[in-house]
């Protein structure tokens, strides 16, 4: 008789709430009971609020048990959970969990499903089909398909990926590079991490396709050091890909060479900015570069370089395999395809929700998220990381697409959605925006380096009730300067959250107290 398959995620969030202990307890209990199981450490499906989410495969169907703790294991075995037995933790078949089945899983369709560190598991689920097709259709057609898909940079800037690739492909050079930005520093975002932990081969495949499309033989992944588990999993995946001939010289007899090197960041937020990332990849301080020249023309080590986010690259294999027009069929306006939204902060059902662009912020928070964790009313939602505006509750009906968010002075960024309830003092959040910029500024340009420090000071005066109207004017003026004169988005967009607080929550300056850290 085949061993019963039991899935326990090896994914940072699941592990952070005890998944490793659960896996150990299951292995131990199974040994004691003399049952034969095959324990698979999958990625997380993204229903993070249910983690640790354990699954048992029964007659080809996976039965889920949610919020499992080590203390539950004995009773789970007693309830015959290996045969899908009834238990208070039992949720039913994974494929019937509403949170999951209503999503538009394009980039994340294998995450949770497969064993991330098995090439067989990957190829059993369409893995490397995109790459094989790329080799068949040739590099020109690959760039065309990406262009046709309407895919835009998922790191936050939203630049059309096809145009970027075309530029690099058309630039002559003896060496070109693919760089993957996995410096996922925005608070409220974790989709890069989940993809790399749950389906690392998909990123590897996307990078090889990118390399093939533009004529680059070398790829770098710049991964933040705050993700040690991701680092271990991804390094192992690279090794597996090399061992099975999917990375290295003459990949699967295609005549194409490509290899990947993984670099760790070192706790600097600004290194998520593409030119700072390139500097850091060269072993230097993460100081932002002037543009032009664009990285596509003169990037890493002065060579033409594709800089793409993890999700951008991981969306490509399916685009090549299924066709660009299929992907473009999702979404609306100039926001084509899907975005892996991340529900975070004060939310009842936090996790990852991949949906076509166009769903409203309210649907996302209420229908997927189930409202706030505290049960209190939503006061504000910060979308798109620390440089994103605080969207007030009255704007929750805004559709989640790039243009609609620009229209309300906000941005989608990397798809992070951080919910705050009505007990939040928004003046403190405005202060933090400036404080964070002061901590993380690379220091190259004055508006960002000095403006952020002055911003904190002015906000402190306003909170303390000192010349509030005068300081209000000063703060608006400072925001103008930072926005107009900063070199990159760090200083240029820090005013976004600050202005949104001034516009929608000005009364909080009157009721604010000084920073909790003072």
């Amino acid at each position, binding site marked *: 008789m085949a061993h019963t398959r039991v899935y326990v995620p090896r994914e*940072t969030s699941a592990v*952070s709430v005890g998944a490793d202990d659960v896996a150990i307890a299951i292995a131990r209990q199974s040994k004691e009971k003399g049952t034969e199981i095959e324990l698979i450490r999958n990625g997380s499906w993204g229903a993070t609020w249910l983690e640790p989410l354990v699954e048992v495969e029964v007659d080809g169907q996976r039965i889920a048990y949610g919020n499992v703790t080590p203390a539950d294991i004995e009773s789970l075995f007693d309830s015959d959970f290996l045969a899908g037995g009834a238990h208070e933790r039992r949720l039913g078949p994974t494929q019937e969990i509403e949170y999951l089945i209503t999503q538009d899983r394009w980039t994340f369709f294998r995450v949770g499903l497969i064993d991330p560190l098995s090439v067989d598991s990957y190829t059993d689920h369409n893995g490397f089909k995109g790459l094989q097709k790329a080799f068949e259709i040739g590099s020109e057609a690959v760039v065309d398909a990406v262009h046709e898909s309407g895919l835009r940079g998922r790191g936050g800037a939203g630049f059309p990926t096809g145009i970027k690739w075309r530029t690099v492909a058309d630039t002559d050079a003896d060496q070109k590079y693919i760089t993957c930005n996995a410096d996922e520093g925005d608070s409220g975002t*974790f989709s890069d991490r989940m993809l790399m932990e749950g389906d690392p081969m998909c990123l590897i495949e996307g990078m090889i396709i990118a390399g093939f499309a533009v004529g680059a033989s070398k790829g770098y992944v710049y991964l933040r050091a705050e993700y040690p588990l991701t680092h271990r999993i991804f390094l192992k995946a690279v090794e597996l890909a090399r061992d099975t001939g999917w990375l290295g010289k003459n990949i699967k007899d295609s005549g194409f060479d490509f290899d990947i090197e993984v670099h760790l*960041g*070192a706790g600097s937020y600004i290194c998520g900015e593409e030119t700072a990332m390139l500097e850091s990849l060269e*072993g230097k301080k993460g100081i932002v570069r002037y543009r032009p020249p664009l990285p596509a023309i003169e990037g890493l080590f002065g060579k033409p370089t594709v800089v793409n986010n993890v999700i951008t690259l991981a969306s490509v294999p399916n685009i090549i395999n299924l066709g660009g027009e299929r992907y473009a069929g999702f979404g609306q306006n100039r926001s084509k395809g899907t975005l892996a939204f991340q529900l*975070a902060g004060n939310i009842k059902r936090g*996790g990852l929700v991949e949906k076509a662009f166009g769903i409203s912020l309210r649907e996302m928070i209420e229908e997927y998220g189930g409202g706030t964790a505290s049960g209190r009313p939503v006061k504000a939602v910060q979308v798109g990381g620390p440089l994103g505006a605080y969207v007030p509750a009255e704007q929750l009906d805004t559709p989640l697409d790039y243009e609609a968010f620009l229209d309300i002075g906000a941005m989608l960024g990397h798809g992070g959605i951080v919910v705050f309830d009505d007990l939040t003092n928004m003046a403190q959040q405005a202060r933090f925006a400036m404080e964070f910029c002061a901590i993380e500024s690379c220091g190259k340009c004055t508006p960002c380096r000095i403006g952020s420090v002055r911003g904190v000071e002015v906000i402190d005066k306003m909170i303390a009730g000192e010349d509030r109207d005068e300081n209000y004017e000063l703060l608006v003026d400072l925001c103008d300067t930072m926005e107009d004169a900063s070199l990159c988005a760090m200083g240029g967009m820090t005013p976004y959250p600050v202005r949104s607080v001034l516009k929608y929550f000005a009364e909080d300056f009157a009721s604010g107290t000084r920073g909790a850290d003072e």
Partner: protein
Amino acid sequence: MSMTSNGYDSSVASEIIASFDAKPELLIQILHQFLERFTYISKDAIRQLASELNLSRAEVHGVVSFYHDFRTEPPGKHIVKICEAEACQAMGSRQLSEHAQSTLGVDMHQTKDDVTLEPVYCLGNCACSPAVMIDGHTYGRVDAKRFDELIGSMGGEK
């Protein structure tokens, strides 16, 4: 004997540098290995890195001081990082940081009784806020009670 009183060992350092082919563009990756081996970046380390990577000491110092991770003072036996970014703020990380500082009796960025306390801006565990990292392990849904339990179970081992 190449070992100095602060635990720095120049021959081990040389081996680490050599394992990266002494490429200056790998300085940040080498510094990570130094942290793992020596727990912090000493002046001796900066001098040796500059010499063996053919960089100026100013260049190496510049990199070390730019990145938050490269501490230049010895940390405690345990390193406790509390996420203070927005998603965790929305779930009470400000109060958690206060709690940590008062129960551990140490301020942020300081070391006392074997424990170094630091803020971190996002551990990517934002659907399980507030999050903390203790000795390289990320924990989620950490309220004051769970924090105390985690600290209690750190024990002597590392």
